[in-house]
C-alpha cells in the first residue's frame, strides 16, 4: 500500500512532461552534490528537462587499432593470433545532458579513435565466438583527473561482466600491481596448476599512490578477453554458453557505486556463426556444433535494427551536475532513468522488427518495462535473451519485462503491426514501483506496478512499408539441462546474504580489503550447487557470480519461471527477492581464481557484500 506522499512522489516523476522544481527544504536553496545521505529522500529532485526532444544516442562501435605488445603475463591463456586490438581511455568530460542548463561532468570510457566525444556511455565493443572467434585485446588508460573532487575515486579496474575470462583480465576489485615490494595482503595472481607461467608484476605505481592499487592515472592495463567457449581446456566445450550482450564497468573496491554512477560503463555485443549479425543470411552452417542449422536471422545492423539501450539512473542538481549520496548504503536511486546517456530520448523506427539489447546499468533501481501507447495500452514483444545469452526458445508475446541491476535483456519488437497510413507513437515505460534502495514493492513473484509509469523512451513508428528479411525463430540456442546425476555429484554450498550492523555480509562475513581468504574453492570441472539465501527482511539482492554462467534449478523450492529456468536460460546474476531462496548450478572451468561473487546493488557491494572464490 502506497502512502499519499509516495503516490505524490511517484506521480511527480512519472509524467515526464511534469516539471519538478528543485526541492531542498529548509536549507540552502542550492544543489548539494556533496551530500552524504538523503535523510529525507524528498529533499532532492532533478531539474526539469524537456521530454522526447533528444534523439536516442547510439554509443559508437570501438574501432580496431594496430596490434601492440601486451604486458608480461597478460593473455597467458589466450591465443592472440588474429586478435582485435582496441584502445580506450577513461576520462572526465562535459556533456550536454539537460538542455538549457550547464553541461554535466561525467566519467566515461572513450575509444581513442572517437574524436566526436558525444557519447554518455562507453564505446560498444564487438566480440565474436565459435567459428568467428577472435580474441579481444583492450588497452585501457586511466586519464581521470588525479585531483578529482567529490564522490568517486580516480582509481579503476575494468570488469568484463558476463565474460568467461582470465582472472587477471576480469577486473578483480583489487587488481593490484604493487611491483617488487608488495604491500602485505597482496592478492597474487599466480595461477594454481599452471607451473611455468609468470607471476604477474608490473611497474610500481607512482610515488605517493601506493594505496591506489588499481591502475592510476596515467597508468594503463591491457585486458585480454579470449572469447573462448567454456571447456576449452578440457573438452567438451559448452558452446551453448556463449553470451549475447555483455558489458564492462568499473569494479574498484569500495568505490564501484560512485565510479559506475559517474559513467564508467559500456556494452559488449557478441556474435557467432548462429547469431551472426546478418538478418538476411540463410546459408546453412557447415562446420562446428551448429553445422546443419541456418543462422538465426535476427534483426541486425548495429544502431539500425539492432539497437543498444543502456539504462542508467541519475539525480541532477540545479546546475545539471550529478548528485550522489555516498552515505546511502541502502542503494542509490536517481529520479531520472537515462537511455544511452540521454533523458527521455526518442527513436524513429520503421514498420519492421527491431532487436533491442537492453542493459540495466543502474546502481540500485529495478525496472518493469512495458511497451505502451499514449492511452496507456500495452503491446506484446518477444524476449530472446538475457544475461546468459540467447534463450533456448523465444519467449513469445510477453507484455512486460521485469529486470534488475547488471542484467541484459533482449527483446524483438515488431512495429509492422502498427498502421501503415500514419505515424504511431509508443513508449518504453517503467511501471515498477520502487521507493528506495531496498528494492521494488512486492515480491519477485508479484512485483507491484502502477498503471501509468515513467516513460523512458519514445518510439515514433514511421508510416509506410519497408522490407524486413529478419525473423525470430522459435528455437534459438538450445542446450541440455543439468542432469539428475550431475546434481547428485555436485558439491553443495550455502551462502546467506545478510545485514550486520548496517553493513552487508555473506555468511556473516564482510569482504576484507586484502581478500586474503576465500569463501569457496571450487574444483575445476566439478559441479557445484550453491544455495543462495536472503533472510534480510525487505531487502533485495541480485547476486552476480563472476567467471561462469549459472543454471537456476529451484526458486523457493519450486520450479523457476521460464525466464530463468535451467533448460531455458543461463544467467550470471540471480535475483534474491525478500526472503527468497534459490539453488543454482555451476561448473567452473578453464581459468583459476581469484574471482568474486557479490550483490549487484552496487551500494551493497561497496558495503562489503562480496566474497572471493578461487577455482583450483
Amino acid at each position: 500500500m502506497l502512502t499519499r506522499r509516495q503516490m505524490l512522489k511517484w506521480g511527480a516523476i512519472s509524467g515526464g512532461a511534469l516539471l519538478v522544481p528543485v526541492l531542498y527544504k529548509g536549507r540552502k536553496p542550492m544543489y548539494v552534490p556533496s551530500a552524504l545521505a538523503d535523510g529525507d529522500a524528498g529533499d532532492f529532485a532533478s531539474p526539469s528537462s524537456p521530454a522526447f526532444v533528444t534523439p536516442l544516442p547510439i554509443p559508437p562501435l570501438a574501432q580496431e587499432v594496430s596490434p601492440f605488445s601486451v604486458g608480461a603475463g597478460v593473455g597467458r591463456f589466450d591465443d592472440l593470433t588474429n586478435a582485435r586490438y582496441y584502445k580506450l581511455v577513461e576520462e572526465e568530460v562535459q556533456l550536454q545532458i539537460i538542455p538549457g542548463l550547464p553541461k554535466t561532468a561525467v566519467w566515461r570510457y572513450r575509444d581513442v579513435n572517437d574524436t566526436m566525444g558525444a557519447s554518455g556511455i562507453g564505446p560498444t565493443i564487438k566480440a565474436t565466438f565459435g567459428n568467428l572467434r577472435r580474441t579481444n585485446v583492450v588497452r585501457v588508460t586511466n586519464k581521470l583527473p588525479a585531483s578529482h573532487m567529490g564522490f568517486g575515486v580516480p582509481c579503476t579496474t575494468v570488469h568484463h561482466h558476463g565474460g568467461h575470462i582470465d582472472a587477471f583480465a576480469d577486473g578483480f576489485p583489487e587488481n593490484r600491481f604493487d611491483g617488487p615490494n608488495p604491500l602485505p595482503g597482496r592478492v597474487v595472481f599466480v595461477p594454481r596448476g599452471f607451473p611455468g607461467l609468470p607471476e604477474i608484476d608490473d611497474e610500481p605505481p607512482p610515488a605517493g599512490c601506493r594505496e591506489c592499487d588499481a591502475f592510476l592515472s596515467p597508468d594503463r592495463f591491457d585486458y585480454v578477453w579470449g572469447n573462448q567457449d567454456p571447456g576449452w581446456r578440457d573438452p567438451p566445450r559448452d558452446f551453448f554458453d556463449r553470451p549475447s550482450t555483455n558489458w564492462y564497468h568499473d569494479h574498484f573496491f569500495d568505490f564501484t557505486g560512485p565510479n559506475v554512477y559517474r559513467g564508467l560503463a559500456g556494452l559488449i555485443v557478441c556474435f557467432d556463426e548462429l547469431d551472426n549479425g546478418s538478418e538476411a543470411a540463410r546459408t546453412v552452417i557447415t562446420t562446428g556444433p551448429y553445422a546443419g542449422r541456418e543462422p538465426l536471422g535476427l534483426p541486425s545492423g548495429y544502431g539500425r535494427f539492432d539497437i543498444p539501450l543502456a539504462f542508467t539512473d541519475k539525480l541532477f542538481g540545479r546546475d545539471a551536475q550529478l548528485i550522489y549520496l555516498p552515505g546511502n548504503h541502502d542503494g542509490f536511486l536517481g529520479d531520472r532513468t537515462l537511455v544511452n546517456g540521454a533523458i527521455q530520448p526518442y527513436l524513429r523506427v520503421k514498420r519492421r522488427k527491431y532487436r533491442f539489447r537492453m542493459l540495466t546499468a543502474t546502481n540500485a533501481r529495478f525496472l518493469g518495462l512495458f511497451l505502451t501507447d499514449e492511452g496507456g495500452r500495452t503491446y506484446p514483444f518477444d524476449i530472446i535473451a538475457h544475461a546468459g545469452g540467447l534463450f533456448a526458445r523465444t519467449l513469445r508475446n510477453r507484455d512486460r519485462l521485469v529486470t534488475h541491476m547488471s542484467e541484459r535483456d533482449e527483446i524483438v519488437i515488431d512495429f509492422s503491426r502498427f498502421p501503415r497510413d500514419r505515424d504511431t507513437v509508443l513508449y518504453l515505460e517503467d511501471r515498477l514501483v520502487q521507493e528506495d534502495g531496498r528494492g521494488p514493492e512486492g515480491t519477485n513473484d508479484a512485483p507491484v506496478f502502477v498503471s501509468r509509469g515513467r516513460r523512458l523512451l519514445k518510439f515514433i513508428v514511421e508510416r509506410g512499408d519497408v522490407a524486413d528479411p529478419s525473423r525470430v525463430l522459435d528455437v534459438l540456442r538450445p542446450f541440455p539441462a543439468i542432469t539428475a546425476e550431475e546434481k547428485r555429484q555436485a558439491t553443495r554450498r550455502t551462502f546467506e546474504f545478510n545485514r550486520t550492523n548496517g553493513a552487508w555480509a555473506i555468511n556473516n562475513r564482510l569482504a576484507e580489503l586484502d581478500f586474503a581468504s576465500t569463501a569457496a574453492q571450487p574444483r575445476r570441472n566439478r559441479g557445484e550447487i550453491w544455495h543462495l539465501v536472503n533472510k534480510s527482511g525487505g531487502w533485495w539482492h541480485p547476486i552476480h557470480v563472476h567467471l561462469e554462467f549459472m543454471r537456476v534449478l529451484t526458486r523457493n523450492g519450486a520450479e523457476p519461471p521460464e525466464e530463468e529456468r535451467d533448460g531455458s536460460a543461463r544467467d550470471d546474476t540471480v535475483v534474491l527477492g525478500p526472503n527468497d531462496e534459490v539453488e543454482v548450478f555451476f561448473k567452473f572451468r578453464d581459468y583459476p581464481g581469484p574471482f568474486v561473487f557479490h550483490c549487484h546493488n552496487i551500494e551493497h557491494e561497496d558495503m562489503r557484500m562480496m566474497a572471493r572464490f578461487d577455482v583450483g
Partner: protein
Amino acid sequence: VVAALLAACGGSPEERVQARLASAAERMEGYFPNTLLVTDEAQTVRFYDDLVKGKTVLINFMYAGCQGICPRTMGTLAKVQEALGDRVGRDVFIYSLTLDPEHDTPEVLRRHAQAVGAGPGWRLLTGRREDLEVVRRKVGLYDPDPAVDADMSQHGGLIVYGNEATGRWSAIPGLLQPASIVRAVRLVMSPAPG
C-alpha cells in the same frame, strides 16, 4: 556560487580545480549543520566549522555502555589511530558520537576515551539527543526500518570517512580488520601536509 559555476565551465584547469574546491566546501557547509556538541574534554564545538571543515574525518556512533559491537569498533579505531600516526590530530580526526547522551555525559566520555586510548585527534562527543540525531542522519548512519533504527543494540557499525576539502566521502564497516580501514581511509586523505 554563480561565479564558481561560471569558472567551472571555463578558464584554465587550475581555475577549474580551484572553483570546484571552493564550491565543494560551500556545498558541504550547506549540508552539514553547525550543531553544537560537547567533547569528552567538556568543550563545546560546532559540528561543521570546528570538527569537519577542511579535514579528513572518521565518524562513528557508539555509547559507553555498549556491550555489542562498540568495544570491537573502538578497539579497531584505536589501531587505526595508531597506524595513521601523527596525521591524526593534524589533518585527520576521529569522532565517536554517542547514541546515549542521557547517560554519556562529558565526564563519562572522558573516562571512556581514556579506556579506549583516544589520543588528541580522537574526540568522543555528546550533546542534545535531537542534535545528535540530525548529525546521525546527515552522515547516513541510520536504518530505513524505523524499528531497527530505534533499537540501539542493532545500531549501525559503520565508520563514515571523508575528506571535506575534496568532497570525497565513503563508509566502511567497523567490523573489518584495522588494516582494511586504514587502506580505505588513505584513499581519501590528502597528501601529507608540509
